[in-house]
């Protein structure tokens, strides 16, 4: 049960693809409550009656009128604007065309969300530096997402015509032939022939009129009916691609969103670290020094009248100083261990391992040293994992391995403790995963109940 975190697997892309739905795969659908219940019928026979199929069919049917409107609007406005470009008036008309297409984009995304279950994030908003109509027009004309919305308006129409015809034909043919046994009597009664004419050249024709032929016709209709949902689904796949590709945020802006959230994590982590350091100073060394000052103050006053009491107080104060020094040393190491800067990961991790309550084997197999920032993150990752092992695992032994593959720095910390460590349960591990994510690293936790626990971290060698 490996849980993977990282830009490739984590929430990073969540906003882009919606709730984990692939943009093109048909399975991206909330299937109207049928959920994962066991079904009596296989999927192939069930499909024509599923709400999902009907929604997709509805989407395709709606596509045509919407496409006509959108296409007419876009083409009219753009040709109007383009034609007027020689005069200044063309620009606002063009801007209006683009603004309209963006607005249509909002509706189209909503339609895709409602009927196809496709979650597409809004494209990047217009970035205007100054308020005012002119700046807004400029931003509209410059933004890639406006032009992509226009392209959608143009491309969606021919596809809508095609998919509408195909879907409606298959649907009508399927249900029509399937129900043929119920209405074939129309022919002898009203049309003067035995049944549907399959072939005819004036001399003779083939009519579907005997029971065998009627049954076969109904079976063919059944095949069409069963095939229709899958054909419609295949058709909507193209719509999904169109909506996702042209009405969503561009790849670049999705990356920007991801980096913005990474930067947020980095800033938050830095602020939390500063708060922690301040707290440690406040509760630790600073409090000790106040107590020390108090002891010395008392001793000073006592010196003349009660030298023995004063000597005892100086003695206590001496003890306080030593404790304060120890605390300051620990705090400084917590901020950044000097040995890491001086001697690198091997020496620093050996020191951490020696402070762990569990015997730890450390093996660092690196020819050269990674970038200082990466080295620091690697150090704190391992030291936090070892702290976890000391506190929670109940392990008897542990090991730390550090090596390099290509341009990644790999860390692995293994212990033989109780296991059951989990990234999702708001533990220190989740914070660790976030920190690694912020530098495009990955944390993989493999910890079945009963152990052993294996935590692997991957960091970029340099960035």
């Amino acid at each position: 049960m490996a849980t993977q975190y990282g830009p490739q697997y984590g929430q990073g892309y969540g906003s882009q693809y919606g709730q984990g739905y692939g943009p093109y795969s048909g399975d991206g659908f909330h299937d109207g409550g049928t959920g994962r219940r066991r079904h009596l019928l296989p999927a192939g026979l069930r499909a024509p009656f599923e709400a999902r199929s009907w929604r997709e069919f509805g989407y395709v049917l709606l596509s045509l009128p919407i496409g006509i409107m959108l296409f007419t609007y876009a083409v009219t406005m753009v040709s109007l604007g383009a034609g007027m470009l020689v005069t200044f008036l063309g620009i606002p008309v063009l801007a209006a065309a683009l603004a309209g297409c963006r607005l249509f984009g909002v509706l189209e995304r909503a339609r895709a969300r409602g009927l196809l279950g496709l979650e597409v994030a809004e494209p990047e908003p217009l970035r205007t530096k100054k308020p005012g109509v002119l700046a807004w027009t400029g931003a509209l004309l410059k933004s890639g997402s406006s032009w992509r919305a226009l392209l959608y308006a143009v491309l969606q129409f021919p596809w809508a015509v095609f998919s509408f015809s195909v879907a409606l034909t298959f649907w009508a043919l399927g249900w029509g032939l399937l129900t043929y046994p119920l209405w074939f009597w129309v022919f002898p009664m009203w049309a003067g022939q035995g049944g549907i004419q399959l072939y005819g050249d004036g001399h003779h024709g083939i009519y579907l009129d005997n029971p065998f032929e009627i049954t076969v016709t109904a079976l063919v209709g059944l095949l069409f009916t069963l095939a229709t949902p899958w054909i419609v689904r295949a058709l909507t796949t193209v719509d999904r691609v169109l909506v996702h590709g042209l009405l969503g945020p561009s790849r670049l802006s999705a990356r920007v969103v991801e980096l913005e959230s990474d930067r947020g994590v980095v800033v938050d982590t830095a602020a939390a670290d500063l708060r922690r350091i301040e707290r440690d100073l406040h509760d630790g060394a600073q409090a000790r020094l106040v107590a020390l000052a108090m002891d010395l103050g008392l001793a000073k006053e006592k010196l003349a009248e009660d030298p023995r009491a004063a000597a005892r107080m100086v003695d206590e104060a001496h003890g306080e100083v030593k404790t304060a020094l120890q605390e300051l040393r620990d705090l400084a190491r917590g901020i950044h261990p000097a040995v890491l800067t001086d001697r690198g990961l091997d020496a620093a991790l050996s020191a951490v391992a020696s402070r762990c309550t569990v015997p730890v084997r450390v093996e660092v197999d690196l020819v050269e040293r990674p970038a200082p920032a990466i080295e620091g993150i690697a150090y704190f990752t391992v030291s936090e994992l070892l702290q976890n092992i000391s506190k929670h695992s109940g392990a008897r032994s542990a090991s730390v391995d550090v090596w390099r593959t290509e341009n990644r720095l790999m860390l692995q910390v293994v212990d033989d403790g109780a296991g059951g460590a989990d990234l999702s349960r708001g533990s220190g591990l989740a914070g660790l995963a976030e920190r690694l994510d912020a530098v495009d690293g990955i944390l993989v936790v493999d910890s079945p109940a009963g152990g052993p626990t294996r935590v692997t971290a991957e960091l970029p060698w340099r960035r």
Partner: protein
Amino acid sequence: MLECWTMSYATTDERGCGGPRNVEDRVRVVIAEDSVLLREGLTRLLTDRGHEVVAGVGDAEALIKTITELHDQSALPDVVVADVRMPPTHTDEGVRAAVQLRRAHPGLGVLVLSQYVEERYATELLAGSSRGVGYLLKDRVAEVREFVDAVVRVAEGGTALDPEVVAQLLGRSRKQDVLAGLTPREREVLGLMAEGRTNSAIARQLVVSHGAVEKHVSNIFLKLGLSPSDGDHRRVLAVLTYLNS
């Protein structure tokens, strides 16, 4: 995590300076401080001077509870010495508790201790009245005599403001042009006045005569355009209001 203990101290043996001259001068103190080390240190410091530490608690909630209980037994202490930062949030619960206690028990002196002094907290504490208020850096406990003096002063309804707070107030004040008109000595006296010291304490500190201090004080009041008031703690408030306005 209510940590509460009581102790009393026999006042028969010899005491250092700053202690009460008579048993009636003995100050009854409640200490609120989350660091056990400092709480014990403070207790020792005060009991050593012959004062009585009625209770010691570790957080603001326990402080308010203890004071309420003592009030119900009509055994309200003279002064509360409280740390600003205490559990559970480790922010400013000490100040908030102090403000609350001052409102509920106007006669109770409150001395707030902190690793840092902020002029904002001082303003909150002093809101309305400067009677029986103190706000000092924790470092001040090193000067045992002065610290115990401050505790006694606050217990008796006086004021004890940290020199750093006063310096912040003086530096931040918008009356810089008027302040610039004071002589260096007058500025010194103004600072000590703002800290809450009496004329005789100022005279002792600056090693000048009582009359000289009185002259400086009336000069200062004249230059700042304040009407001289008689009570020491009222004059603190007048000075602070002036600096803050």
